């Protein structure tokens, strides 16, 4: 209670020097932008694991009374947690940020296909354009890492 009133008082001081029309950093455009769904995933992970800690916490406080019986139970629970963790790991839920190697691999695959197709086309046309794929390559690499 005291802490709260103390902080409230401080906020009152802030308002003493209010002056709305000046200064600051100019913001450009709307900031209501869409961000990676990866953040949602983290939120879900947190929700799941944080709730699971509740169980561990409630076990921790009474684990002496529960003894080995409870230990085995929690062990099973923890093993389940690990299974889930491994599962998520393998499924890429824990890959935060882009994985350069994967993108490169996928891109190469794509490129091979494309170049193969282009080779056919060029053979048909009787003219080869070897530099074009390389240029494209550079360009897209930039865009994926950016």
């Amino acid at each position: 209670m005291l802490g709260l009133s103390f902080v409230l008082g401080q906020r009152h001081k802030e308002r003493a020097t209010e002056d709305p029309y000046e200064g600051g950093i100019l913001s450009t455009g709307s900031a209501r932008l869409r961000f990676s769904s990866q953040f949602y995933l983290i939120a879900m992970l947190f929700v799941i694991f944080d709730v699971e800690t509740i169980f561990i916490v409630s076990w921790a406080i009474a684990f002496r009374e529960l003894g080995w019986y409870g230990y085995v139970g929690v062990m099973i629970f923890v093993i389940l947690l690990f299974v889930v963790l491994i599962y998520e790991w393998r499924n890429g839920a824990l890959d935060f940020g882009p994985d350069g190697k994967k993108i490169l691999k996928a891109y190469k695959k794509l490129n091979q296909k494309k170049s193969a197709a282009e080779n056919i086309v060029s053979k048909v046309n009787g003219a080869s354009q070897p530099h074009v794929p390389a240029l494209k390559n550079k360009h897209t690499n930039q865009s994926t890492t950016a």
Partner: protein
Amino acid sequence: MNTISVEAGLILAGILFMLGLISVMIRRNIIFMLISVEIMLNAAGLAFIVAGARWAQPDGQVMFIFILTMAAAEVSVGLALILQLYHQLKTLDGDAANKMKG
């Protein structure tokens, strides 16, 4: 601290529950509907704790932890679904999700 009477606790839980109920009914944004449902669940959890306190048993709290877990799982799935739906509909308006009728 004074002990709170069972009736008061239940009434509080009931009010929370009703609030959740009403807002599920009137909200159109799916996320808000989800939140309202969570409120209802938590109201039920509160009622359990009050009931457990009345009988001086830990059962109520145990139940509350389970409810919490379940609510968490529900939110996770719910968020994922909402995200998917948003990708397809580009809106969170519950009324937009009306492809099925009859």
